[in-house]
């Protein structure tokens, strides 16, 4: 029974005309303008009013959308199924969380100007070395990108060089995020143990609860999602992108043709980790909490299902999938709490068995069928 290579061939080729993507960007542009306007202008209780809660929720979906984009980039186009992408998301989130913790300053429960509350609680006397620098926002931004990138670089370098692929790679990425989860749960690590970081106050001196700050963060998230999409699209339509797809479809053949398969894979893997890290950094200030459960292997597998449901190997489909699944999750966990896991589990099965191209693929098929019908 073939395992791994060659198993992934039935995915839509890179489309030249990116109609779905253009629509996605259009929707994002509308959302970026309309949602904040409707949040600020109409009176509360008005029909048109979008509550701050809804706005935060949409921002959350958008950061998940970025994460799905990151997974689709490597899974849909390079055939690398990472079951540990939640780790890069969480690392970006933790980096941002450290900055936000430093911003609290002396306003914590214990009022210590230097140490976050949990360190005071653990009787620590000074800031651990890796916490230095996080008082600076530019440094934090650099870390949001560098920490996931470095982890992806080292991990990917080792894994791709020794040609770990297919399910083996999936399993060790899962082990990676599991190990990180166990590590971050430890109080001694200096990341707040199982409580993680919360009770943030300011970002860049602006109050996180203020409408202005929320709107700014929302717009930033929309922009980040849009630019990530453009970036991924640029990568996969570039010459290097063609090689990446070739690696997905026939790794050995690409290698025999003289391409340095490992470096292409490594490069796209690191890029994907960076996008995931930025998504995490945008998620944390808006949701207001980050804890080690973000590293849990189940979270990472859930990301894969967003991509599979939306439509693997389409980029915009991944974003659509992240929105649809999370919308359903928000609704179902509220309305029928026990039903959610049945629903999610059923989705995994139905999509893999019956919808190999995802929702986007189904819509595409349906439209093609109609077009053919009309030309006859």
């Amino acid at each position, binding site marked *: 029974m073939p395992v791994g290579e060659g198993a992934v061939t039935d995915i839509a080729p890179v489309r030249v005309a990116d109609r779905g993507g253009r629509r996605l960007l259009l929707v994002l542009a509308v959302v970026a303008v309309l949602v904040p306007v409707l949040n600020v202008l109409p009176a509360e209780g008005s029909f048109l009013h979008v509550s701050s809660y809804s706005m935060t929720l949409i921002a959350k979906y958008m950061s998940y959308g970025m994460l799905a984009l990151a997974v689709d980039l490597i899974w849909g186009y390079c055939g690398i199924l990472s079951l540990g992408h939640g780790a890069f998301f969480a690392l970006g989130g933790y980096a941002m969380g450290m900055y936000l913790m430093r911003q609290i300053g002396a306003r914590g429960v214990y009022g210590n100007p230097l140490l976050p509350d949990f360190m005071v609680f653990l009787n620590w006397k000074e800031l651990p070395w890796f916490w230095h620098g996080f008082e600076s926002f530019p440094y934090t931004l650099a870390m949001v990108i560098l920490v996931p990138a470095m982890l992806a670089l080292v991990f990917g370098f*080792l894994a791709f060089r020794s040609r770990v692929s297919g399910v083996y790679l999936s399993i060790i990425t899962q082990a990676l995020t599991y190990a990180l989860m166990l590590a971050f749960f430890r109080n001694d690590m200096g990341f707040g143990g199982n409580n993680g970081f919360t009770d943030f106050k300011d970002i860049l001196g602006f109050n996180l609860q203020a409408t202005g700050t929320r709107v700014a963060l929302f717009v930033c998230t929309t922009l980040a999602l849009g630019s990530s999409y453009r970036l991924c699209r640029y990568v996969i339509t570039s010459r290097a992108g063609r090689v990446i797809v070739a690696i997905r479809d026939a790794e050995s053949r690409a290698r025999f043709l003289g391409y340095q398969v490992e470096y292409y894979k490594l490069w796209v893997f690191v890029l994907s980790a960076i996008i995931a890290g930025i998504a995490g950094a945008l998620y944390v200030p808006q949701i207001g909490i980050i804890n080690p459960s973000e590293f849990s292997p189940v979270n990472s597998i859930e990301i894969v*299902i967003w991509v599979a449901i939306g439509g693997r190997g389409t980029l915009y489909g991944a974003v659509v999938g992240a929105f649809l699944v999370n919308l359903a999750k928000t609704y179902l966990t509220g309305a029928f709490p026990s039903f959610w896991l049945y629903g999610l589990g059923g989705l995994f*099965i139905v999509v893999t068995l019956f919808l*190999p191209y995802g929702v986007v693929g189904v819509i595409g098929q349906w439209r093609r069928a109609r077009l053919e019908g009309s030309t006859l």
Partner: protein
Amino acid sequence: MTRTPIPTVLTILVFLVGVGSARAARAGGTEAADKPGLASLLAQLPDASYADKRVLIGRMVQTQDPKVRVVLRAMLDDSLYVRASDQRIFIGEADQETIHLTDALSGQAAGAVSGDAVSLIGVNNQLRKTLRVALAQFDLNNPDAGVRLAAVKEMLRALNAESQAVLRSRLGMEHDSAVRRQIKEGLALSDLDSSDAAIRLAAVVALSRSLNPDVYNRLSAMAGRDSDGVYGEADPAIRAAAQAGLRVIERYRRFYAVVQTMIYGVSEGSVFVLIAIGLAITFGVMGVINMAHGELMMLGAYTTYVVQLLMPNHIGSSILVAIPAAFLVSGAIGVAIERGIVRHLYGRPLETLLATFGVSLILQQAVRDIFSPNNRPVITPDWLAGSLQINDVLAITYNRLYIIIFTIALFLALLTLLKRTRLGLDVRAVSQNREMAKAMGVRTAWVDALTFGLGSGIAGIAGVALSQLTNVGPNLGQSYIVDSFMVVVFGGVGNLWGTEVSGNALGVVNKLLEPYAGAVLAKIFVLVFLILFIQWKPRGLFPQKGRNAGG
């Protein structure tokens, strides 16, 4: 427990008057009794002072009458009474207002009386100590070596010249080696206090191989200085002997500590093997990534719980019933998963992974809805509780011991099944070359379903074992899934021996790291080690060879 009220002056007077006549009456009775010694000794108890009682206890022991033990025990427990009406001795069991009496000599029930009708034979703390030693001396002649050993230990707690003499004489006729060792050790320990340097030296030498923690403490105290800088032992020759003895003891202790770590490591490794061996079949032999493997184990654990609910009066055998039951439950669900889902996804491993993960979510939620989101209590049968005390520093809990034995048995059974039966032959044929097997008339679809069912059933059996080791809850499976895949990949996919070796190796490494790093950090180290190991040997410890090795 109600106690007899302190006798008033009046009742004491009544006693004094009654004593003479009662004694006269009893004198006739004792002639008829087959143990006149005990009866007359008992009769003296009510009037005896504490000092007299001590003497009486000593003489009772000398009678060697088996009833003495009961009487002394009752006295120690404050339940030996004298009846005011006839001055006879009874063992009483207090119950609310009344006391149920049993004749101390004949052992016959003598009805219930109110607390005023009897009075307690009082004991003080000094007497209690005497009683314990007396009971122990009495037990020293018991035919059961275990009782004798306990008696020796009891006597050693409060040793005096008299009990030393008793122990020395017992040593002469004792045959059981454990009891002999215990007596020798105890006597040598007491000899350490002797004023004669030669006796002390001999005792130190005799104790030099003992693993008893008391011995270690005493020898350390002798070899070292106390807080005032005074040596615990004045004689330098004895001090040197004590130091030499300590070195020997420490070497033994280190050795047994290593043995203990290894056994615990192998036991932990057996858990790894258990959780991975079903996966070694579905993933290793069939190449199917079954993310619901952990949930199949969870179902096995819940089966144990249900079996115990169904047979609450036979908890001891419930585990033995649960093993085949769990195999059937998890195996049947495994076959259903294979027929319903996995079958359509052969050759698409990543999709199989996702679909079976969906199954795992559904199974978790189903268990949550059917049972409860909380952990379910699974009872540990008595024969699994407790520990095997090998010596003073090495004890192995029975559940650790049984898990090792159980895993080995399961592993051998599975190996036999795969290598020696028709089904095993078919399974191996299909996994090596599906098309060729089909051409030779093997019903591949049927073999696939059975193989998957087998792996799933084994997961269920592992769940029965896990129910004795960990909490049985809906998340049981999730906490093991990463571990189980790592074990299979580490050992080399498609290789049962690899799984066995890698599981045990990981368990031992985990236990070796734990004292230095703590449990969680040790686990993280092991995971990181495995991630790095797979880079080095992507096909595991024992890679498959030959044409089908590609994957």
